[in-house]
């Protein structure tokens, strides 16, 4: 272990004695302090928190990610170029130890830089809240927690769709050329839309599973986003009834909601709700006769407090650290294979690919209709499209552990970054992927002749 720590210490000393580190530190602090002050937000405290946590800290960690890739690429490639690696390679140190030492050293530096960013951002947040008025502080109190998202209980839509299909088939036979699967899928979508639709003058009831109540004054948020059938409508009037199955109108809240925007209602729950399902009812009172369609994906949520902001923030920082460790591993591995410019270009290209992960996943989800599945309604996919889609599916599979919602975005909107997410993010990216890269790099470095004449 001592050789690994020696190489790690060497990397740290190299960085500390370089002016680049001071410049980076200065840049990060300037970004964290000046960016929130220079960006004109929406004037609300939630907007400021979003700017500070999501954008400012996001930009800082992106800079750290780029630096990690660059420093990682340089750590081995410059040693090969300067031939100093020959002095290590002729000592009783194997290539895995060289890789591990470099990685640990740069990870330690990343930990320091990230900690500084996280602490300064936290300080900025508190400084701003101390200067804000009571109303803003009350909003911040609700937002700066770790809230669990809870969706309404969905009925068994698959079974309901099958029943509905059977009912229709009994009434009239299926048209020729239309497959059963396509019809079933179509009915499933109709039932889902029905579940989230409130017709003009109607009411809709949703049930939420019971959830733990941690205090006698637990602020719960109802968050919803919907579309209106009336084009150009700015306000939709209605009432929200919140209660239990025995008493569904414990809270009766009249609300003017804005279509396509994120609408929120806060209400306080106590221990009387323990173990009881929550019943949510919407009564449409709109004069314009609008039909409301709530978004299928997180269009109707309850946000219930599950932990403190500090814990949430720390867990998000751990995930960020895991990402930086991954990028460092990627950079070092590229540096073991190529010269600095090529290694840096390759690793930054991969960084961009990872950031385009959701786009790649989107393409990968393109449905393939194989020639033998083609019907009158659906033509077979071309072979070119099949090949491209399969390549993207492969890429999406490899990248799937790396592509997920931003932990910073969750923290800034008061959503919980749970332990499972933290463990998965930290262990998978920070440890498992990095160790895999280290293993590959050590094999490749072992095969590489480190004293070849340089051209």
């Amino acid at each position, binding site marked *: 272990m*001592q050789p690994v720590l020696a190489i790690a*210490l060497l990397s740290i000393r190299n960085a500390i004695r370089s002016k680049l580190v001071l410049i980076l530190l200065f840049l990060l602090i300037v970004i964290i302090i000046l960016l929130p002050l220079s960006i004109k937000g929406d004037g609300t405290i939630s907007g400021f928190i979003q700017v500070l946590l999501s954008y400012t800290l996001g930009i800082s960690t992106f800079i750290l990610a780029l630096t990690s890739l660059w420093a990682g690429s340089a750590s081995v490639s410059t040693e090969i170029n*300067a031939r100093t690696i*020959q*002095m290590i*390679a002729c000592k*009783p*140190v*194997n290539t895995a130890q060289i890789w591990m030492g470099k990685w640990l050293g740069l990870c330690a530096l990343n930990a320091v830089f990230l900690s500084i960013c996280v602490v300064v951002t936290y300080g900025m947040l508190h400084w701003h809240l101390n200067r804000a008025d009571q109303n803003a502080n009350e909003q911040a109190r609700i937002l700066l927690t770790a809230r669990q998202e809870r969706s309404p209980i969905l009925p068994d839509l698959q079974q309901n769709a099958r029943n509905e299909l059977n009912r229709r088939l009994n009434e009239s036979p299926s048209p020729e050329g239309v497959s059963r699967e396509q019809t079933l899928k179509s009915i499933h979508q109709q039932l889902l839309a029905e579940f989230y639709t409130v017709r003009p003058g109607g009411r809709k009831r949703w049930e939420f599973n019971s959830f733990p109540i941690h205090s006698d004054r637990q602020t719960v948020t109802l968050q919803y986003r919907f579309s209106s059938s009336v084009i150009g409508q700015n306000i939709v009037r209605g009432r929200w009834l919140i209660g239990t199955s025995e008493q569904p109108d414990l809270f009766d809240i009249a609300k003017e909601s804005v279509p396509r925007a994120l609408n929120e209602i806060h209400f306080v729950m106590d221990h009387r709700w323990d173990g009881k399902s929550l019943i949510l009812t919407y009564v449409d009172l709109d004069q314009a006769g609008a039909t409301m369609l709530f978004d299928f994906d997180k269009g109707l949520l309850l946000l219930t407090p599950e932990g403190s902001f500090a814990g949430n923030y720390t867990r998000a920082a751990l995930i960020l650290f895991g990402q930086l460790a991954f990028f460092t591993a990627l950079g070092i591995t590229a540096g073991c294979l190529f010269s600095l410019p090529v290694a840096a270009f390759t690793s930054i290209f991969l960084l961009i690919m990872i950031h385009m992960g959701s786009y790649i996943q989107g393409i990968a989800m393109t449905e393939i209709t194989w020639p033998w599945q083609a019907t009158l309604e659906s033509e077979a996919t071309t072979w070119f499209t099949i090949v491209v889609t399969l390549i993207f599916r492969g890429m999406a599979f490899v990248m799937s552990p790396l592509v997920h919602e931003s932990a910073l975005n969750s923290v800034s909107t008061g959503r919980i970054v749970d332990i499972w997410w933290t463990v998965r993010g930290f262990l998978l990216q920070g440890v498992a992927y990095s160790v895999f890269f280290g293993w590959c790099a050590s094999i490749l470095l072992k095969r590489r002749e480190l004293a070849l004449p340089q051209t």
Partner: protein
Amino acid sequence: MNNPDITLEVKSVSKIFKDFWRRPKVTAVNDISFQIKRGEIFGLLGPNGSGKSTTIKMILGLLYPTRGIIDVLGRSPRDVKVKRRIGYLPEESYLYPYLSSAETLDFYGRLFDLKSSERKRRMDQLLDMIGLKHARRRIVGEFSKGMARRIGLAQSLINDPDFIILDEPTSGLDPLGCRQVKDLILTLAKRGKTILLTSHLLADVEDLCDRVAILYNGSIQAQGTIDALLEETTRFRLTLPPNATPDHLRTLENQIQTLTGEKAHIDHPRRDLEQFFLHVVEHARRQSGESSGVGGDSGTAKYLAADSAETSGATGTSSAPKSRKDIDEALNTLVKKQNDPDR
């Protein structure tokens, strides 16, 4: 190879450097074979580009032979266990410019997994030995070439190696430093250490080496003991006792002329310049005290010099200094021969 008396065996080794498309570009080493016995000082000589450094890097496992086998201390050069017993001073001291001299030695000591107390002890002794104790906190990047060379030498000895590979060990050193390095090499050899060295300063090689191999164009052109290579059986040298007078010499000169019919050549012996220089510097140091550069010779580090008395009888101990026959001449003749198209 399991013979404990053989430290290094190079068998029919070739190295061909290839281009990006794996096409052969340069044959740097071509079918060379030699052995180095335990406790021997072996010199690898040759002009620039003759394949000396390539051979050394293959012995260290930094390059892989295209053909042939190299055994170092009975194992493959790429074996990590072998590397624990090797010390290497490269032709240029590839050091980290941001580390101080103490940090440099500490770093390499850590790579050998030496305990903290042992590292510190060896570091102190080595810095003292190379005359840089006063510069232990100065960063290596500020050092002159000679000072960096000394740190390079110290790092090669931090693990008290059994097999020491020194690529141009006296390059960049002043005559005083050269003498210290040569004395150190002899001390190490007396302890039974095996030393492989290359040098352009052929007088150094002649002073130190038991055997040499002369490389040219990647091939070994000659190898053997210094005496065997340099002895000229057609010429003679006569050494007179100290009480010989000019009258004795004249009588002898006349006798030789009578017997051979030719006049013998007699003159006064000369000290060599190195000895004279060392004498002058030593005298000046006694007069002026401390120097701002490299400090005085504090002798060999204790852990390196330990047991030298006991091990001086080890196989193949150095017999230097040897007779001063001109090895440069031998090499130059050889090179000329190679370049002669009619040979």
